[in-house]
């Protein structure tokens, strides 16, 4: 009886102790990489244009650290996908620390396999393709660069939709439900390697390169026609 109680207590305490230790390691990392902009305890600093981290939760920390968006070289820049500064365990620790700063959503667990590809394409067209283009190849808006989605993992897509990093709109569960999100992710995964049945896809980048290739082919045909109807001068 007492052994069983002990075992239960131990089982409850060990993960708690482990996560506390992780948060401790996270605090150390936070002091090294983050505090100069986000301030002590994630409260932000009045002198630096960086947001407070209270209440952003594990979701935002996981997204910004695993995409290499953070740390930024300089406050005020658009975060971009870059080389990861920290290993996965260190990121785990930092995410745990930021989550411990106060509430916020956990890291999402999307299920793209439950989504519908066609519904996903429709939703992506409606909500995302204005900036990211229908093939998810990224593009431009004035003052910012919507990224290419070819390296985005399903979890990162789910996170970005809920956060709205930089100037991207933020989509709540009311705007895009979790099951709609599954469909969108399924479509983005599909758009990375679409199955082409139309022959020459030319990188799926749209009508401009296809038109260029057509021009080149057409020009060669025209040269051929000129050779047929013309006659070479002798000598």
């Amino acid at each position: 009886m007492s052994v069983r109680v002990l075992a239960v207590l131990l089982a409850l305490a060990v993960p708690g102790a482990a996560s506390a230790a992780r948060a401790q390691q996270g605090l150390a990392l936070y002091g090294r990489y983050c505090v100069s902009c986000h301030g002590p305890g994630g409260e932000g600093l009045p002198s630096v244009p960086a947001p407070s981290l209270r209440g952003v939760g594990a979701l935002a920390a996981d997204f910004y650290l695993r995409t290499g968006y953070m740390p930024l070289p300089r406050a005020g820049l658009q975060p971009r996908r870059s080389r990861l500064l920290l290993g996965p365990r260190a990121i785990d620790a930092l995410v745990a620390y930021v989550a411990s700063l106060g509430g916020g959503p956990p890291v999402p667990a999307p299920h793209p396999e439950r989504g519908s590809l066609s519904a996903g394409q429709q939703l992506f067209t409606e909500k995302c393709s204005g900036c990211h283009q229908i093939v998810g190849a990224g593009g431009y808006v004035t003052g910012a660069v919507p990224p290419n989605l070819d390296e985005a993992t399903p979890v990162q897509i789910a996170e970005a939709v809920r956060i709205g990093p930089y100037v991207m709109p933020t989509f709540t569960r009311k705007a895009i439900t979790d099951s709609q999100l599954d469909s969108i992710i399924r479509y983005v995964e599909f758009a990375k390697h679409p199955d082409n049945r139309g022959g020459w896809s030319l990188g799926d980048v749209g009508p401009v390169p296809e038109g260029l290739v057509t021009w080149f082919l057409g020009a060669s045909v025209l040269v051929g026609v000129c050779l047929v109807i013309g006659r070479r001068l002798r000598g």
Partner: protein
Amino acid sequence: MAKTRDWLLAGIVLLLGRTRSQPGDRERRLVPERPPNPRAELAVLALLGLSSSAAIAFVVVYALSAQTQLLGLAIGLALVFLAAALVVAGKELMPEEELTDEYPADERPPAQETVAQLVDDGVGSITRRRLLKLGLLGAGGTLGLAAIAPAVSFGPLFRVRELFATPWRKGRRLVDESGRPWRASDIEESDFYTAFPEGANKEEIGSPIVLVRLPPDRLALPRELTGYDASGIVAYSKICTHAGCAIAMYRAPLFQPGEPRPALVCPCHYSTFDPARGGEVLFGPAGRPLPMLPLEIDAHGYLRARGNFDGPVGPSWWGVRNRKPSSQ
């Protein structure tokens, strides 16, 4: 009256007689007389005729359905037949002579005469010359007609009233694409929504609007647009005032101090509009602000229009500033 008739007759006689001077009375031929080639002439005429019919088909298709594939096929065939006619004429009917001597053109006028005679003699064997000319003229004329027919699409020349009509009027509810009415509580900050007038044709240029919610203290509407928002929700025409594309991008900064301000952006040429300042142009080729629709929230929480847009909807043209939009 009689005088006019005489002038007309004289003109026709002149026109017909102009080409009658034949170079038949020259003493010596340079090009051996060729037998006429009626089959080639017929072929050229047939090809020119086919070209004409294809060009006319273009105009007909344009007027009836304007199916782009058919239009392309028609104009393509017209050009191909014209080219084929010219190739056949060049190969079979025109004289081919090569002069290899080199000499300055103006030093030996007799040589020029020789060339002129060469051409005349060579062409002399064509029997249906005028018919061929007529065929060529017909093909050229119909192609020209096909080229200018699409100008009809530039729009009505004088009836511009319908360009200013929109389906919006006071009290009309805002619905989403599937016809469900939008509630004010559906509209969240940092996201953007498309809405249409309830019960109206969504395809009309004046129908679609884009909805965003801004913090009321961030709104800085110009004086004539004060009160157009409904507790921070603002509505603008979704059609860009530059070239008429749909405003498909919303720049929604997550953290305002370090990031660009909220903006509605058109993906075609990056015209950028400020939703907080009555759709003012921040960047890009658009020459006038996005038309703003006044909103109100009814007793049940639904969004309704409180009138029509403050300016004309759609791409800009020379008379666009002359009128205010009207309700259909």
